[in-house]
């Protein structure tokens, strides 16, 4: 039978160092958790935002996302969902369809005040029938300020609703009191996924 060995000084120091490390890690974690804001990122609820919401037709475009954000260029940007885009020849999100029609049969003015949307023909244009083509619409994020005009223009039933507004989480400062959320009259700016689900419901 072997006799139980007494811990050496080195063993005691090892245990003490390990314990101190665990305590330090726990402390850092607790501090991070304590300093974190409310859960999730700011998001736009599509069923509340007047620019996106279906059924809200014939109303003024709301540009509060563009003008209320604390950033010089709002963190809210328009995004075109290519899987839904009809690639229309006359896109009501790209053209100001109320402007005079030119000799080419197209509206003479663009809708975007910052000229942030580019239009590119897909394939060859039939010279005898220039309307007979598809077009790709790409939004330049560096120019877009989230004013919502293209979103309202593309909304169903006039368009297909492929353009939407999104808070770009890489740009958003994640303010505790988002100035857009304060300004939004429709409470469309929500904080996390749970809020979004609740708002959608």
């Amino acid at each position: 039978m072997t006799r139980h060995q007494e811990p050496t000084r080195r063993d005691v120091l090892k245990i003490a160092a390990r314990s101190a490390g665990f305590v330090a890690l726990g402390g850092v974690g607790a501090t991070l958790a304590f300093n974190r804001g409310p859960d999730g990122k700011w998001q736009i609820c599509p069923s509340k935002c007047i620019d996106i919401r279906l059924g809200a037709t014939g109303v003024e475009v709301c540009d509060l996302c563009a003008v209320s954000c604390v950033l010089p260029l709002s963190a809210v940007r328009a995004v075109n969902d290519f899987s839904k885009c009809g690639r229309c020849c006359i896109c009501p999100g790209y053209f100001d369809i109320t402007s005079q029609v030119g000799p080419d049969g197209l509206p003479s003015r663009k809708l975007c005040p910052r000229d942030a949307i580019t239009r590119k023909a897909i394939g060859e244009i039939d010279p005898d029938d220039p309307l007979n083509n598809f077009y790709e619409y790409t939004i330049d994020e560096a120019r877009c300020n989230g004013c919502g005009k293209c979103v309202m223009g593309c909304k169903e039933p006039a368009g297909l609703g492929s353009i939407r507004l999104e808070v770009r989480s890489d740009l958003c400062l994640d303010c505790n009191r988002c100035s857009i959320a304060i300004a939004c009259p429709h409470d469309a700016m929500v904080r996390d996924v749970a809020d979004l689900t609740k708002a959608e419901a």
Partner: protein
Amino acid sequence: MKYRKIRVLSGKGSSPGRFSETLRGIAVDRAGLIHAVGDCEVKVFDVKGKLQRRYRTTRPGVCIAVDRDGTTHVGQAGQVEKFDCSGKKLPPWRDADRMGLVTAMGFLPESILLADAQDRCIRRFDRKMVWLNDIGKDNNTRGFLIPNGHLDFQVDPEGIIHATNPAKFRVEKYTLEGKMVGRFGHFGVHRPENFPGCCNPTNIALTREGNIVVTEKAGPRMKVFDPDGKMLALVGSDAFDAGCKNMDVAVDAQGRIFVVDTVRLHICVFAREKPEKTEDRK
């Protein structure tokens, strides 16, 4: 020429004569009965709106058409379901390669036509359901431009197909062989005869006199054109819910026009107003 709304048929609700979720297509048969499809059901009304009969479809119906012999055809995704005059189910017509989404149908003594919105063209079959040719694919976009997802046409007794081409803002006429023989319509917001939005007109029907009735979305309107494309009548947006789109249209032998309000789930009936006889007053 002026049209006024004389009544509405059906509506939103759960009673047998109403639709609870969708109302997609209508057709008028030779007896003047109105066949409507929605909610996986066909309902047949008389012109006053009284429900005559109803029967189930296996898949949601997108369009409906009644052949000369009274057989009802319901266009769906991937197939056409057929019913006899009493609503008894007949063997369905399936063609996996040529029936993506059937959104319109037409009948001639020798052939049957159907619109496949998935492949953006009109298919022509003989009476034995053998495919003959496609119509509207002979262009650089290989088909009609239908961002609205719905292709509509009607064939006249001479065999000329009148089809909507919404993203080109016009009505196009084709022979059965697929040759384009005419077209009219332009984009525009300010003049009522022009077509606004991203894609209009969406639906089409022909009157007995050969006039062309079309419906538009955003804002929803109905227009009547003569065969040369001159606008004869306009029914404005206030007749329909603002959110309506792809409103199916049909015309009966008396010239009454039936238009589906896809939001309120009812059928608006329009009749032509008699012109005022100014000379009689003198």
